[in-house]
């Protein structure tokens, strides 16, 4: 058993202190990173509660319910930032990346503490797959929001749609890696492939082309 709250405090304290010596975008990134870690802990609480109340079992909860809980929890702070501070697309990106990276880091820390880190290969897979997956879902969400904002069609449907895409991607990953064999290899490769795809299409809609939308 690990004490996730203690791990969180241990990682967060130096970050809190670092806020005294940083400014603007760096400070925003650090706050987002810490928010991501806190959100990860809260998601674990909620998933644990759902596992008991629905009777799904630990494995089924992690495959079917955790993606829903984790993605909603990750998106809440970003949505808050998006609607309350109304940042430009460029300012929103570090926030989303910070939340995703903080979430992935804290989840990996807890996982390694409970399962051990003796095999470098296993740890690398964990970092490259799960770590990247949390980043990819956040980036996809931001890209979706930015596209909708660019077309001036931000709506309930748009937000739910972008969120559900991220949830389904996360759920697909969890489902694929739940079984050993070829499906797990596909699952491990999926986040990196999507990260590459998102990187390739990232800036095209905001390239300054002011063609009229019909």
């Amino acid at each position, binding site marked *: 058993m690990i004490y996730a709250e203690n791990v969180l405090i241990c990682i967060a304290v130096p970050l809190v202190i670092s806020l005294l010596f940083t400014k603007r975008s760096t400070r925003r990134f650090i706050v987002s990173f810490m928010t991501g870690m806190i959100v990860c802990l809260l998601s674990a609480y909620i998933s644990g509660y759902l596992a008991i109340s629905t009777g799904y079992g630990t494995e089924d909860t992690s495959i079917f319910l955790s993606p829903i809980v984790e993605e909603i929890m990750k998106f809440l702070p970003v949505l808050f930032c998006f609607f309350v501070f109304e940042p430009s697309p460029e300012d929103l990106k570090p926030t989303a990346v910070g939340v995703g990276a903080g979430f992935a880091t804290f989840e990996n820390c807890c996982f390694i503490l409970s399962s051990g880190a003796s095999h470098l290969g296993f740890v690398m897979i964990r970092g490259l797959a799960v770590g990247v997956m949390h980043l990819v879902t956040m980036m996809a969400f931001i890209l979706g929001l930015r596209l909708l904002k660019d077309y001036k069609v931000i709506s309930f449907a748009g937000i739910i749609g972008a969120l559900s895409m991220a949830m389904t991607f996360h759920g697909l990953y969890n489902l694929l890696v739940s079984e050993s064999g070829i499906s797990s290899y596909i699952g491990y490769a999926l986040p990196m492939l999507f990260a590459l795809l998102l990187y390739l299409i990232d800036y095209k809609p905001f390239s300054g082309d002011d063609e009229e*939308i019909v």
Partner: protein
Amino acid sequence: MSDSTLIGVILTIVQVIVLVAVILPTGRSMLRRNTTLIAVFFCFAMGCYLFSNLYWVAYDCLRPDTRMPFAVNEFAECAMILFLSAGLEKALRDEKKIAWEIIFSFLFIGAHITLWIFWSGEWVQDIVFGIPYIFYLWLLIRGIRSRNILPKREQICIVLIHLTVLVLEFIALFSEELNDATYIPIVVLTFAGLIWLMIRSIKDKDVFTTYAFFMFSVLAMYSFGDLFYDVAMVANTVAIPLMYLSLKKERDKER
């Protein structure tokens, strides 16, 4: 893996290929900011549907012949309907809001949701994820009326067909002895309605007709199992490129 699951997986993979084929050109013009708003929403909707289908394929391959519990793909399908509705809303040029249209949509989809609950027992998700269909159907009715796409006689005919199917489905649900006698008319009427909508979609290439064809093929998929589910899925796959073609026509019309 049983034969019916295998056929389902193959049909879903075919649908994935069709979805990729329509998402790529729509997505490309969307990123170049050279498209209509309805096409933007269509692209997002089909993206959701693609993820849902991939999830189905992965699930059926990893856990064949087991019933899928509540999972993320339900959100994706709900989001797809919301995106398609948002797109239709942008294409709709109708100021009139006639009360019976919203009442009809509510009752029609409400009856379907009731059937889904009886069939699956999953009442929370059937209600929550069924609600967007009410809005979607309402937009379709308003669009078809305001654009005069269908003659009055055909409108009455299609409404009667779908109401008869609904009544027969309820009869089949509650009376065991009548099951065989009601099942054949349900199948015949449902697929006759779908074929008629498909012909109309090919002929008119109007967004409201093609989107209606898509929705009724989804409802048909939810109503049947095994062979007829597969047939409805083929119709659903055919509806996707028809929707894409109708969007191209819509774009040309707006320009």
